[in-house]
């Protein structure tokens, strides 16, 4: 249940958390790695001391997680939104009995925190932590995202994506077209672009300046993960038995776009992906449990580690790019210091 150093790989600590790892995130200062778990707890790994704390935050399963300077925001199938400090002390922000809090998002400065509750987005003021429920969307929220600067909030739902820029109480939101069921969302680091995976094995990319979206298709499976490269010019996606990177800079003609595909892995689909925050590197977790480090410039990928899981569910880098963390459906989790 606690993290312990791996005997083979220097810099790697692993743990068997005995619960489905729903999501993971590092605190903005990089000092704490958090894992939201299917048994309702939040596992907190203190990077400096190597200690593990397990905070009971939800009565059922913890479904989502977002890191902010105030702490870790989680949502659960008990209808609660909870904020937990790195030391494990938690504060209930809101409770909606009978509903699930399935998605959470926060910007780097934590000015606004957000969760979704059925068809509605709930905002929390960064200082007072007072909740305000935005007007209901036409369908249940399938994904929620904020760019690092926190100046926008996007909610994916059936037949579109609604963007609140800036996210504030009473905001009506700006509807972006997107026929079908829309799920996982991601923003580019500068907040200028947004990508949304759909139920139909495709990804739609939006340029927020132009309000126009285009579709990326050809996947053999549903895309479960998205991540923009640091420069915002490449969109990394799952849904294939390889790393898939789409050129999404304005200079490339949408009709002539061709994906960079490398690091083919015949044993499973890419289910979790995280672009490095500074270097041209991308981490990918494949079904079966292998985590690879992709090097797009060399069109190659090297295995980093294997998790005892059927699926790698989540991966995240620390803001400084020094640490990579992740977890899977069988409860295995890791924190890797890539500097050794």
């Amino acid at each position, binding site marked *: 249940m606690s993290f312990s150093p791996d005997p083979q790989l220097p810099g790697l600590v692993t743990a068997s958390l005995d*619960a*489905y790892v*729903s999501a993971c995130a590092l605190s903005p200062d990089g000092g704490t790695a958090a894992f939201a778990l*299917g*048994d309702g707890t939040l596992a907190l790994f203190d990077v400096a001391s190597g200690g593990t704390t397990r905070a009971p935050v939800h009565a*059922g*399963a913890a*479904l989502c997680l977002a890191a902010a300077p105030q702490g870790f925001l989680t949502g659960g*199938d008990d209808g609660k939104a909870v904020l937990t400090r790195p030391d494990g002390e938690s504060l209930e922000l809101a409770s909606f009995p*009978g509903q*699930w809090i*399935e998605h959470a998002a926060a910007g780097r400065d934590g000015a606004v925190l957000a969760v979704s509750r*059925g068809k509605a987005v709930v905002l929390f003021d960064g200082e007072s932590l007072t909740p305000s429920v935005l007007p209901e969307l036409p*369908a*249940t929220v*399938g994904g929620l995202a904020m760019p690092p600067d926190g100046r926008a909030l996007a909610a994916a739902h*059936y037949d579109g994506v609604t963007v609140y820029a800036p996210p504030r109480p009473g905001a009506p939101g700006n509807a972006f077209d997107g*026929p*079908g*069921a829309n799920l996982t969302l991601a923003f580019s680091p500068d907040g200028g672009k947004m990508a949304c995976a*759909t*139920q*139909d094995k*495709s990804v739609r990319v939006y340029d927020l300046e132009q309000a126009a979206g285009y579709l990326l298709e050809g996947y053999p*499976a*549903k895309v*479960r993960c998205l991540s923009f490269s640091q420069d915002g010019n490449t969109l990394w996606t799952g849904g294939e038995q390889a790393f898939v990177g789409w050129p999404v800079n304005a200079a490339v003609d949408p009709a002539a776009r061709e994906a960079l595909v490398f690091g083919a892995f015949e044993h499973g689909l890419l289910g979790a992906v995280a672009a490095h925050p500074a270097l041209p590197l991308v981490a990918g977790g494949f079904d079966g449990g292998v985590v690879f480090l992709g090097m797009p410039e060399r069109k190659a990928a090297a295995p980093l580690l294997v998790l005892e899981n*059927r699926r790698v569910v989540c991966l995240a880098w620390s803001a400084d790019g020094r640490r990579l963390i992740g977890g899977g*459906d*069988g*409860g295995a989790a890791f924190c890797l210091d890539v500097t050794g």
Partner: protein
Amino acid sequence: MPSIPVTVLTGFLGAGKTTLLNRVLSENHGRRFAVIVNEFGEIGIDNELIVSSDEEIHLMNNGCVCCSVRGDLIRVLGGLARRLGAFDGVLLETTGLADPAAIIQTFAMDEDTGEAFALDSVTTVVDAVHFPRHVAENRQALEQAVYADLVVLNKTDLVDADELAGIEATIRRLNDTAEIVRAVRCDVPIDKLLDRKAFDIGRLLFGHPALAGQAHEHDHGIASVSLAIDAPLDPEKLGEFLSGLLRERGQDIYRCKGIMAVAGTTQRFIFQGVHMYLETAWGAPFKPDEARTSRAVFIGRGLDRQALEKGLAACAAKEGNA
């Protein structure tokens, strides 16, 4: 990891779905269930893990109007899957007018759902008192019976034997493989309900074609067409025929299934489909002394028996290839 069985309980409002649900839950079976209901109704449900989910039909963007999945089920089952080892099975109680096709297609078309869960049964509770009226007024009452592998004919104490026989005949006319169990206050033995594996393509069932077929005035044009063909078929032509048929008529074809003899192999070619979704597999080989007869059933609205017969006959393998 073995997939978790899901039992779907469907049927019109007041038929007794919740009664059946509570009967399963109260029985001493040693299993733990997660229960999904559309809304908390008047009758309480005694279970620790219970989720309410609003039916959300999501059309797939593949140009097919009948390819829909239940977005809410994908979400709720995906969420429940995170509670490792917390339950051994799922009971899903639908609304009275729910379309089982979208539920079946969800398991087939969403790989995350299909990987972690297995559709075990679509059990339809039929209200013996009101079924004739429900059928006359709503196509859905018949459709729910078409998709069922188990029909619980409930409230049999309130109608006479002739009426019961008439209801059973109506159900058999459209779905001759469903097991029909008569019940009073849903007193069905629990082992009838669980571990049915009814949607496992390896356990495809065929009934008695003699009982099916004839259209009936209150059937809303829904009929079952049962075909048999003795000549071995060309697998390629058969594949083209089926995909073409479902592409053009899939909206009206609720279900199809077949166990076919094809040229070039002794193995049975098996297919089953719901609207435009088709699943195929190779089954056990025919024994040397066994008649290599192909059988197929199409259940749908406004089906053209002759066209189906002709289309299938045209898939016959050329002489000498058998």
